[in-house]
């Protein structure tokens, strides 16, 4: 038998293209030099410079005569495409609690609600000319009062939308037991007020869309940098008045997503195909970096109030959480982020009694949609800061307080009694939190730390340690599918509909197929995110690709294998149960001479009238077939293919714990990471190299989010740091030299491979773990994240003055 590839550190197949500069990202599609007959037209967007204003007039007359400009569109032109193009963009995830959901128009109608909102769309020979034209459009505005930040939204002295009272888009409450009563009766009580600021995904590649309309076929081809090809396809079809069958969406290589590319359709994903059809030309929109800052999406901003009651051991008796979530100017992605915060806040713990209520608030800022972690980092921050506060209050070890609250390994499946983001019960499938805690304590040197701290203090140095635990619901439904096709060449073509943004799907999915089918890994070719190859799919988010598509691919390969064995058994005149497939060859166990390769099985799977090469002769009508039977049996179909779907009852829950040791400079308040440790449990690993890469990346993004990155809006709603010069993403110099990782593998009982998602985990505990470590080093409560050296310096200063 060959070694199973599941669990192996297999090198990535996609790297061969990427490393040669042969990746094909959306801006690499339809590249034709200007002046060539097939040259592509380029679009630019006029965006609102104001956070809140009424549009009185748009004058495009200066644009029309500019040489090289092909078209300019404003809101008034949209209805000429279809009536629905002039309707608001879809509200993707409706929810009964979202009583005041609002979405923007593809181009602003009468009013703008954030700096960056699209107002006009220009198509020209190149991007330079398109931007020239944009600068010639004149708009008259009547200024309205901008609402910026959660405090202003709650105060509601001004409204973002006139018809949304109090700026409240949604109020939602979930309860288990009676938390207020339990807290009132508890021997000990604490209250915490916490804040987290806005940040954003910031993939290195921004958004982009290319569209080509084929008038001969009445068919639209669209390439877009998305996390949901099928979502974009459905939205574009509706808006353009086309049947689904007339729209092909292809997601090429994507230069990072981290959540922001799951929202759809972006205005440009509709405007580009609209212009392509109207102009009969290929049209391309490639976002620039400033546009990405002001017109894609942000996340994280929340204000939290927590009340907790607990016993002498630190055991939770009641937890009552209220939080206010800034969702920006519109709610295309519904309430997913705050729902995740409110449910995943519980982490690995049993709260006994829990009440959570949130308000999701409008502000005149960029929309908020999921960013890696998607509300979990804020929930983890709320819960872990609470655990730290309880430990401090009782004078107990922070790890011990966590341990008394853990769900125990024999308590799974454990139903938290809440409804999760997928509308299903928040029921944890498996986990072993005490084992994880032991591992993380060992890995970071928890027990040895007090001695280290004392040693450092003797040298005048300040160090602190932090610990944070999380549970992550991964692999949410509704489903994913896969198609496996064994070609007559013996090559295996695999398609799944969700998309890829760097996770190495072409490698891990090929590992699964090679294992199940017994073909060689090199013969497997995986395509993702192409609606021509797999029209039924959901998308890549919520750490779901490995779980959902991985399981679907495994099942589809199994079906293909069943067919292989049936045909091969007939050809080899053997019993199916005596056959094995190794290295792409089916043979009878014990007699390797009696064999047939997968390519030949594929030839035999498709009864032919016509031969077109030597190989296909074997399948023609005078060569094979039982004259007494139909060439294709009633319950069969031609071709060597397998197709299947995976649709789990509910999510599978990965978990983990992070610990960090930081040093804070007594003079400058600079924060240095001395050690970062991760214990991670995502069930069985398909490719440990790739999982570790995901953790590294998540940790780095989390460090950015905890110590450097924030969206700096001023009171007028201008984003002051909308560039990589001012929005401080970490370089290698900000990331520790080495991240210690240990794995625990608690398999999921919910899917055939026992896997759980891993993509977001690295970023979830960051704000919590850094706040804890800095607080430990400084002895000052840390209640607002991210925290910069200047802010720490100010905190020290104000404490000295209040003392």
């Amino acid at each position, binding site marked *: 038998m060959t070694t199973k590839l599941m669990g192996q550190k297999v090198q990535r197949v996609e790297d061969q293209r990427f490393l040669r500069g042969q*990746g094909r990202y959306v801006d690499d599609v339809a*590249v034709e*030099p200007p002046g060539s007959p097939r040259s592509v037209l380029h679009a630019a967007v006029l965006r609102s410079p104001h956070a809140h204003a009424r549009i009185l007039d748009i004058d495009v007359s200066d644009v029309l005569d500019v040489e090289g400009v092909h078209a300019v569109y404003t809101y008034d032109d949209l209805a000429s495409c279809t009536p629905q193009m002039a309707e608001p963009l879809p509200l993707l995830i409706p929810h009964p609690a979202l009583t005041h959901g609002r979405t923007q128009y593809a181009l602003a109608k009468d009013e703008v609600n954030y700096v960056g909102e699209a107002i006009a769309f220009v198509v020209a020979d190149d991007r330079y000319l398109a931007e020239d034209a944009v600068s010639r459009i004149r708009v008259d505005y009547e200024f309205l009062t901008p609402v910026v930040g959660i405090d202003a939204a709650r105060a509601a002295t001004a409204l973002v939308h006139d018809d949304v009272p109090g700026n409240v888009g949604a109020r939602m409450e979930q309860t288990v037991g009676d938390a207020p009563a339990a807290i009132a009766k508890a021997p000990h009580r604490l209250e915490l007020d916490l804040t987290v600021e806005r940040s954003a995904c910031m993939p*290195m*590649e921004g958004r982009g869309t290319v569209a080509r309309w084929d008038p001969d076929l009445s068919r639209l081809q669209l390439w877009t940098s998305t996390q949901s090809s099928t979502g974009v396809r459905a939205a574009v079809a509706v808006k353009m008045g086309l049947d689904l069958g007339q729209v092909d969406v292809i997601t090429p290589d994507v230069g990072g997503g981290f959540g922001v590319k799951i929202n759809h359709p972006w205005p440009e994903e509709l405007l580009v195909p609209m212009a392509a059809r109207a102009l009969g030309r290929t049209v391309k929109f490639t976002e620039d970096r400033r546009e990405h800052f002001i017109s894609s999406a942000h996340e994280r901003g929340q204000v939290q109030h927590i009340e907790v009651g607990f016993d002498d051991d630190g055991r939770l008796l009641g937890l009552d959480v209220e939080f206010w979530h800034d969702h920006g100017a519109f709610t295309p992605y519904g309430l997913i982020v705050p729902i995740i915060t409110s449910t995943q806040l519980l982490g690995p713990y049993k709260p006994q009694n829990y009440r959570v209520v949130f308000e999701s608030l409008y502000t005149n800022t960029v929309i908020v949609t999921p960013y890696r972690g998607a509300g979990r980092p804020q929930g983890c921050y709320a819960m872990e800061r609470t655990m730290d506060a309880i430990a401090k209050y009782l004078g107990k070890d922070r790890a011990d307080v966590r341990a008394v609250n853990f769900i125990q390994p024999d308590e799974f499946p454990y139903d938290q009694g809440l409804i999760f983001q997928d509308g299903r019960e928040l029921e944890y499938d498996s986990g072993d939190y005490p084992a994880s805690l032991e591992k993380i304590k060992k890995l970071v040197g928890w027990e040895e730390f007090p001695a280290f701290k004392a040693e450092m203090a003797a040298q005048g140095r300040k160090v602190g340690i932090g610990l944070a635990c999380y549970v992550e619901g991964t692999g949410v439904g509704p489903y994913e599918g896969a198609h496996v096709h064994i070609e007559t060449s013996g090559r295996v073509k695999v398609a799944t509909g969700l998309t890829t943004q*760097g996770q190495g799907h072409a490698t891990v999915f090929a590992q699964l197929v090679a294992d199940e089918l017994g073909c060689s890994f090199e013969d497997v070719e995986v395509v993702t995110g192409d609606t021509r190859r797999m029209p039924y799919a959901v998308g890549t988010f919520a750490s779901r690709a490995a779980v959902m598509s991985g399981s679907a691919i495994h099942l589809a390969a199994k079906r293909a294998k069943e067919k292989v064995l049936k045909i091969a058994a007939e050809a080899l005149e053997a019993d199916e149960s005596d056959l094995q497939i190794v290295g792409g060859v089916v043979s009878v166990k014990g007699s390797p001479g009696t064999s047939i390769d997968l390519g030949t099985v594929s030839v035999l799977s498709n009864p032919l009238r016509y031969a077109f090469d030597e190989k296909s002769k074997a399948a023609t009508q005078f060569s094979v077939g039982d004259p007494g039977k139909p060439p294709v049996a009633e319950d069969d179909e031609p071709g060597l293919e397998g197709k299947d779907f995976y649709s789990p009852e509910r999510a599978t829950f990965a978990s983990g714990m992070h610990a960090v040791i930081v040093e804070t400079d007594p003079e400058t308040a600079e924060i240095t990471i001395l050690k970062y440790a991760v214990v991670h449990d995502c069930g069985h690993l398909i490719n440990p190299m790739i999982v570790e890469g995901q953790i590294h990346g998540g940790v780095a993004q989390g460090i950015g989010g905890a110590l450097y990155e924030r969206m700096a809006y001023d009171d007028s709603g201008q984003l002051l740091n909308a560039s990589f010069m001012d929005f401080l993403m970490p370089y*290698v110099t900000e990331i520790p030299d080495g991240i210690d990782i240990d794995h625990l593998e608690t398999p999921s009982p919910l899917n055939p491979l026992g896997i759980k998602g891993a993509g977001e985990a690295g970023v979830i505990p960051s704000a919590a773990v850094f706040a804890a470590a800095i607080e430990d080093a400084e002895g000052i409560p840390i209640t607002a994240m991210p925290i910069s050296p200047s802010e720490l310096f100010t905190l020290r200063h104000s404490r000295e003055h209040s003392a």
Partner: protein
Amino acid sequence: MSEELHDLRVTVNGATHDIRVPARRLLSDALRHDLGLTGTHVGCEHGVCGACTILVDGAPTRACLMFAVSAQGAEITTVEGLTNADGSLGPVQQAFAECHGLQCGFCTPGFLTTITAGLRDNPRPTHEEARDMVAGNLCRCTGYQNIVKAVERAAEIQANA
């Protein structure tokens, strides 16, 4: 009024190209859209991220901060020019594959060119020097751990070549 065009001759990865470009056309756009060398990526258009880094007469240069016309007569190397003559991966590319130094691959070309020049000037970097070598490029996927490993592995591959 159409834009004035300027004749430009550049050598890219050993091949000479004659093109006509407006004075304001960025070198990154000329490489990508006029010459079709889309391996050079543009991440920020203001010289911070380093994704567009190419070698101009051997020196790592942000292609997004240079006008194409100012590359007149220059010898340019892009990521497409880093493979060996037989088409196999060059040492830095090979090291990235072995060390899992890339995920989405968008920033990768800029790292590859930067490290290629870095190792030419300092073929045996210390660990600290390996980290410094990539300290001017942003990557949002990898957390840099494996990129630093790849620098050291590339040095090893070159030393053994």
